[in-house]
């Protein structure tokens, strides 16, 4: 299991928003789905472009490049052209901010 | 936003200009060179600065992300090599590589970007054959070099790396074979790379006059390098009327090497200009090869072979330009990929308007040996003449289960059977060019790699 890394303050990622952060050398998108935080790798499984340029629709992250959809709670693909899942990371809210566990 | 110096934005160095790769280095290198060469280097440098570093948004770099694979800023300039021109002083691995070779008509070896030794059979010297280091050639044959070095075949405008090499080459090889002369035996160049974390730039220029015959074997090798090392090689081959040139490049650099090779072959009327590129080593290999068929009757066979393991990455970008009628080109690139290795083949046949009666073929075949390996193949055609025969093919497959079972039924174990299948698959390429002992050397290295897996 990887180390927990503090990536942002809670205010940095309000509900409905995305935020790109680094966990070690891995770019990760932090997603706030109605107050619950999720983290997925910032790389679309379609053509490896950054997902942090996309948009959240509820728990669905829509890639801005060709419209692939992912469920950020599981990383599962939910719409073409994505057919493969993306990696997810464990997130924790602590007193001093948001933590993500690296791998 | 303005900063403390009052700049609205910080002045930025052009992409790829680093503490090692910069104009000052061009200055240093060309300090004692003739004016034409100095000028040429500076011009190349300007082209280099003006071109952006290729990104994966460019079709030709789609599968090789330079930003991840090459850190130009981390590269240093190599220290001067201490190797004396003495067989005994040769690094052992280099000596062993050369000991495996068949006899040659001439031999050059180099260490860390510098030529250490040159010899050529006296009978050929008498016939006017020149086989020497590029530095020496610049002094002795300025007119020839001025006319042909980085001009027709690989001018800096061809690309960022071509420009960089033309600006910063430290040494290389020049081969000139006069009209009608047959070298009979191959000439060999063997280079050893020992320093890690640096950038090497070398060039080769081959001029085959009408009716001459050449076989050129170009080998480069190293141990594993503990820091990323750029090995850049530019090869220009000019084959005049009716000449015959075979060029073989064998690359077996260690891990950590980024091998960048640009090659261009220009074949005039009735010339035969064949190339074979063998990639066995380096972490990343990028080869850009163009064969231009400029005169009627010209032909080029273009062969390639690669074997990947670990996280090796091979990217071959080839083009076949048919610019005259009655020309032929035939390309076959084959690779086997193990571990997490990956191969990209991108090739294009262009039949230009008026190049009637062209025969052009292109084949890329990959064998995936591990579940993590990956192959991408992009064999393209652009045909603008109608009376042509063109075809291309690409395939990706795995070890043929049947062949393996057949061999196992003959009493071989699984591993032996697999080895034979792989060697048989790659052997097709080796069989298409007379290689002598080099073929055995390649087979041996592949066998060693297979054993390791």
């Amino acid at each position, binding site marked *: 299991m990887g180390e927990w890394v503090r990536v942002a303050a809670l205010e940095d990622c309000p509900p409905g928003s995305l935020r790109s952060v680094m966990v070690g050398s891995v770019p990760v998108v932090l997603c706030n789905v109605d107050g619950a935080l999720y983290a997925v790798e910032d790389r679309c499984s379609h053509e490896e472009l950054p997902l942090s340029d996309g948009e959240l629709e509820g728990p669905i992250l*829509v*890639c*801005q*490049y*060709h*419209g*692939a*959809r992912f469920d950020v709670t599981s990383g599962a693909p939910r*719409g*073409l*052209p994505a*057919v*493969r899942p993306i990696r997810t990371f464990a997130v924790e809210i602590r007193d001093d901010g948001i933590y993500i566990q690296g791998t | 936003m303005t900063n403390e110096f009052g700049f609205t934005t910080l002045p930025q160095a052009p992409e790829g200009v680093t503490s090692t790769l910069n104009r000052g280095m061009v200055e240093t290198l060309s300090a004692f060179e003739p004016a034409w060469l100095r000028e040429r280097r500076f011009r190349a440098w300007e082209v280099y600065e003006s071109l952006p570093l290729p990104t994966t948004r460019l*079709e030709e770099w789609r599968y090789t992300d330079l930003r991840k694979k090459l850190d130009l800023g981390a590269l240093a300039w190599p220290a001067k090599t201490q190797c004396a021109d003495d067989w005994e002083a040769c690094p052992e691995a280099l000596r062993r590589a050369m000991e495996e070779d068949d006899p040659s008509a001439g031999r050059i070896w180099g260490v860390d970007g510098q030529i250490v030794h040159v010899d050529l059979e006296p009978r050929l010297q008498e016939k006017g054959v020149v086989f020497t280091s590029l530095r020496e050639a610049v002094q002795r044959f300025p007119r020839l070099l001025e006319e042909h070095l980085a001009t027709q075949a690989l001018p800096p405008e061809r690309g960022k790396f071509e420009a960089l090499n033309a600006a910063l080459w430290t040494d290389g090889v020049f081969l000139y074979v006069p009209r009608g002369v047959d070298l009979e035996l191959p000439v060999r160049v063997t280079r050893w790379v020992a320093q890690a974390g640096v950038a090497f730039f070398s060039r080769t220029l081959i001029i085959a006059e009408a009716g001459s015959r050449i076989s050129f074997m170009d080998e480069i090798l190293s141990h594993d390098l503990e820091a990323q090392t750029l090995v850049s090689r530019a090869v220009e081959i000019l084959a005049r009327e009716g000449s015959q040139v075979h060029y073989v490049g064998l690359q077996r650099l260690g891990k950590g090497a980024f091998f960048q090779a640009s090659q261009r072959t220009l074949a005039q009327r009735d010339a035969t200009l064949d190339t074979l590129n063998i990639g066995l080593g380096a972490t990343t290999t990028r080869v850009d090869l163009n064969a231009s068929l400029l005169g009627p009757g010209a032909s080029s066979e273009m062969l390639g072979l690669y074997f990947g393991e670990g996280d090796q990455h091979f990217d071959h970008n080839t083009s076949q330009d048919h610019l005259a009628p009655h020309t032929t080109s035939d390309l076959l690139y084959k690779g086997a990929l193990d571990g997490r290795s990956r191969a990209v083949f991108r090739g294009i046949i262009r039949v230009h*308007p008026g190049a*009637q009666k062209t025969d052009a073929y292109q084949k890329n075949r*990959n064998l*995936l*040996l*591990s*579940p993590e*390996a*990956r*192959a*991408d*193949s*992009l*064999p*393209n*055609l*652009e*045909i*603008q*003449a*109608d*009376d*042509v*025969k*063109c*075809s*291309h*093919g*690409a*395939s*990706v*497959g*795995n070890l043929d289960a049947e062949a393996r079972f057949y061999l196992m039924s003959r009493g071989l174990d699984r591993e032996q059977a697999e080895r034979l299948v792989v060697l048989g698959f790659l052997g097709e390429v080796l069989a298409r060019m007379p290689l002598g002992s080099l073929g055995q050397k390649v087979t041996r290295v592949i066998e060693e790699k297979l054993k390791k897996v």
Partner: protein
Amino acid sequence: MPQNETIQSLGLDEYKYHFVDDTKYLFRTEPGLSEEVVRQISAQKGEPEWMLQFRLKALEIYRSKPMPKWGGDLSGLEAVLDQIYYYVRPQEKMGHSWDEVPENIKRTFERLGIPEAEQKILAGVGAQYESEMVYHSLKKEWEEQGVIFESIEDGLRKYPDLFRKYFGTVVPPHDNKFAALNSAVWSGGSFVYIPKGVELKTPLQAYFRVNMERMGQFERTLIIADEGSRAHYIEGCTAPVYSTESFHSGVIEIIVHRNAHFRYTTIQNWSTNMYNLVTQRALVHENAHMEWLDGNLGSKLTMKYPSCYLVGEGAHGEILSIAYAGDGQHQDTGGKIIHAAPRTTSSIVSKSISKGTGRASYRGLLKVHKGATQARANVECDALLINETSRTDTYPYIEIEERDANVGHEATVSKVGDEQLFYLMSRGLSEDEAMALIVRGFIEPIAKELPLEYAVELNRLIELEMEGSVG
């Protein structure tokens, strides 16, 4: 009249398509594209709010995406896009039987040769005239079987839940610039649902044409083939000849559920001033089969790459493609197959003919994802060149991430052999006839898959096109 000039530059037979009908247009938007135009389209159709939002979002995406730099030459397109009418509504009412179809439209169909081509085999026809369905009837037994074959507008109105569940899921507006444009201004097209286990013996057909100068056509089709069903959908189009450029950009989405078989056939013969940029994609589930049969004969530039996403185990995808590029035409066509599940299989067969200054390009993607074990894929592209000035290109992308897969791609380029020609001529054929015969033989493997009427039309076209081709 400039139209007359165009007639002369074309083959004689083609003038039968060349007329502009005096249909009364009841409503049309201003030329050019704006948010207002999008709102008007949506309001005209009485759409639910979510669709309006979908359109507006798509417009935003369309504007944010650059023009593609690959494929064909789109430099003349921007000017075209500023001028076209994004929505034209010709008739208020949908016809339900042939009798209800207005006389002038019937005349148009007749002049297009529809009666022979369609009526014989069809009782149910989904026909698109201008931007909207004006004629639409459904065979009785299909209705009884629960088959839905509606205009896309009626689909949205009558089956809102089914529609919303699938619409835009196969081709999202982000996919490419023209998919975004279509998503913003779509109008017309079909909505098809084949219920579980239903097998249709006769094909579903839609026939449409563009009739008005400077008018764009943004057809949108959504097809759902439910588990175990079998059906064939045919769409063919001819366009009258115009003096200015025209534009067609469709989006076709197909979902093929478990064990279903679906075939989609398109033959396009747009007039040679048409930009035809279409996104066709199918999502193919477990053990389902999807076949695209794609014929591109007309247009100035077509960019169209039907694709199959094989996401269920054992899914099969097939693309059969014929392209004909005559003088000044560029057919940039091909196909994409994505293997994303084990034991998926696919095949692409592409045949192209380039004549005069025509250019036919094959562009394809074959991708095998990791985990798609035992995937098998094969691509064959053959190009035939008729003249010295003809051009052909092949640009395949083959991306293989799975060891346990077998993939092959072969392409050949050839010219009609002199020996072949001489042999046929020695048998008493004229040079043109011989050429037409050879070309027909070349496309035969695909032509034989076409419904008879189309095959006959295709043959006629080839004969016409080969006139005076040798020399």
